[in-house]
């Protein structure tokens, strides 16, 4: 069983579109959407949810006003500015659930309680089982929800003896991305030939190197700026990251997306490109 996580650093480079199209070409697959901030994979794959569970990913401090003596210790010790200065109320959006205020409170007026941070869905798509999630807006710890998506995807893959786990990762370089990558056999980095895309790609490469995860490169819309595309290619060669494919700036892709279709079904050249990605993945992951 091999787990591949698709990430992009910069948003909007085509990560989800790439993931959906690759998914249609892989057999024996479990899908996971770890982009819990902006989960879009389901919009292309139209999975049918078969079960859902509420995820309690975070704890917050809850105060019993009757026991509070307004001593302000919780305010003094909280390092996350999660206690209001005037009347010592807990700001849920800022509370990290560390428990320091609970510890220092002399009257036991505070305690930690688990709160709902999102919902985890197990679904069936036409390309295999799919796990996705929805974060409650404003909630913290998307990293934990990401880990739950991966855990579930992995459990299903084991149970059903699947060959591939394909993860649509989160953008950025912080907590959710690190959670998306943990334990993956390989990362696919989807970028675009813009200075921002390149700048963000460098950061993402640092992250995959930091966590020692082998990576492959996809340059989307490569002919939008061939100069930068070439620079990205050269940079990745130096970093020992294999180029998996370059996808053109194509109207067919835009139109397919609008209709909620996959571009591999609408263009033979693009399909060939994606098939070559598949064979490179097979080679890279089975040879080692």
């Amino acid at each position, binding site marked *: 069983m091999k787990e591949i996580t698709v990430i*992009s*650093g*910069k*948003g*909007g*480079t085509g990560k*989800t579109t790439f993931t959906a199209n690759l998914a249609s070409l892989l057999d024996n697959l479990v899908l996971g959407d770890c982009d819990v*901030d*902006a989960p*879009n994979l389901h*919009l292309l794959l139209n999975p049918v949810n078969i079960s859902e569970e509420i995820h309690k990913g975070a*704890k917050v401090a809850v105060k019993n006003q009757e026991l509070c003596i307004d001593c302000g210790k919780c305010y003094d*010790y909280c*390092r*996350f*500015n999660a206690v209001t200065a005037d009347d010592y109320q807990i700001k849920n*959006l*800022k509370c*990290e*659930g*560390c*428990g*320091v205020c609970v*510890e*220092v409170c002399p009257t036991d007026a505070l305690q*930690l309680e688990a709160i709902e941070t999102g919902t985890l869905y197990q679904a069936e798509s036409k390309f295999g089982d799919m796990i996705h999630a929805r*974060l409650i*807006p*404003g*909630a*913290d710890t*998307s*990293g934990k929800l990401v880990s739950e998506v991966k855990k579930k995807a992995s459990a299903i893959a084991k149970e059903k003896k699947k060959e591939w786990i394909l993860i649509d990762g989160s*953008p*950025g*370089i*912080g*907590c959710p991305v*690190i959670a998306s990558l943990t334990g993956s056999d390989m990362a696919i980095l989807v970028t*675009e*030939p*813009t*200075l*921002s*895309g390149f*700048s*963000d790609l460098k*950061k993402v490469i*640092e*992250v995959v190197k*930091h966590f020692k995860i082998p990576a492959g490169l996809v340059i989307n819309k490569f002919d*939008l*700026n061939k100069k*930068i595309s070439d620079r990205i290619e050269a940079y990745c060669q130096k970093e020992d990251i294999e180029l998996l494919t370059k996808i053109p*700036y194509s109207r067919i892709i835009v139109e397919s*997306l*609008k209709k*909620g279709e996959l571009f591999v079904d609408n263009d033979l050249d693009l399909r060939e490109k994606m098939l070559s990605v598949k064979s490179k993945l097979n080679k890279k992951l089975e040879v080692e």
Partner: protein
Amino acid sequence: MRLRLAWEDIIKLNPEISLSILSGKGGTGKTTLAVNLALTLGNVQLLDADVEEPNDYLFISPEIENKEMESVMRLIPEVDDDKCTACRKCVDFCEYNALAMMLDKVLVFEEVCHSCGGCKIVCQENAISEREKELGKLRHDNQDEIDFWQGELNTGEEKAVPVIEKLKTKIDRNKKVIIDSPPGTTCPTVEAITDTDFTVVVTEPSSFGLHDLKMVIEMLNEIKQPFAVVINRAEADSDYLIEDYCQEEGIKVLLKIPFSRQIAELYSNGKPFVNRLEGWEEKFKKLYQEIREEAARHERNNSNQR
């Protein structure tokens, strides 16, 4: 007529406003709007709070790495093995499993440590002290018309909020403040937009764009933040996706930036388009005027409620 006068009075009273620019998913044009708007207005402070992937510098200050830099630190516990009695209190206390006991020695996993300081408080032997570790950086380039600040999260670090908090301490209310926020709906985004007078949400007319826009709006309503929408990559045959939704919800669409290969190419080279394509300076000026009016209107509604 009277109403208009009232808004103008308020605008006079609050000469400058602070604005945050946000999107549900990345890559919708947040940077494009922030940068081009900042270049249009004089006396601006632009703060790039998209600390995981800051990109404004490419357009505003490509050499920012050589400019003024300030570290953002966090605290990591250190255990004095001589004083430690292996009582496990710190290990049991830590909600993040950042401490573990191995062969009567406490190990610290700094990557998962949230720097809450709880372990130090619960240790009765005074065996825990804290040392500083760099979490991120602020960079600064003060130019003629734009005072530019950028927050940056270091590789391998998870928590963007402290960097954004530090960045916000640099806000200068005598200037037109524009904060380029991290995309999404989680803590870093909320941190970046809280305390700004108004938020502009950038979206694109696709099913992805609409889906993520709805998530952002849910969050904005939750924290009662006033906002309006700008459509990027607008196209005649698909704008209805966003426009219909906004109309139903009573949300104002302030501007459309068209789908254009020319704009995309300029962007790819780190070039703003406002001073290169005809007519855009006026459009951005008008946009800012409308934003101020919207912000003032909201301010007025709010004071009415009080």
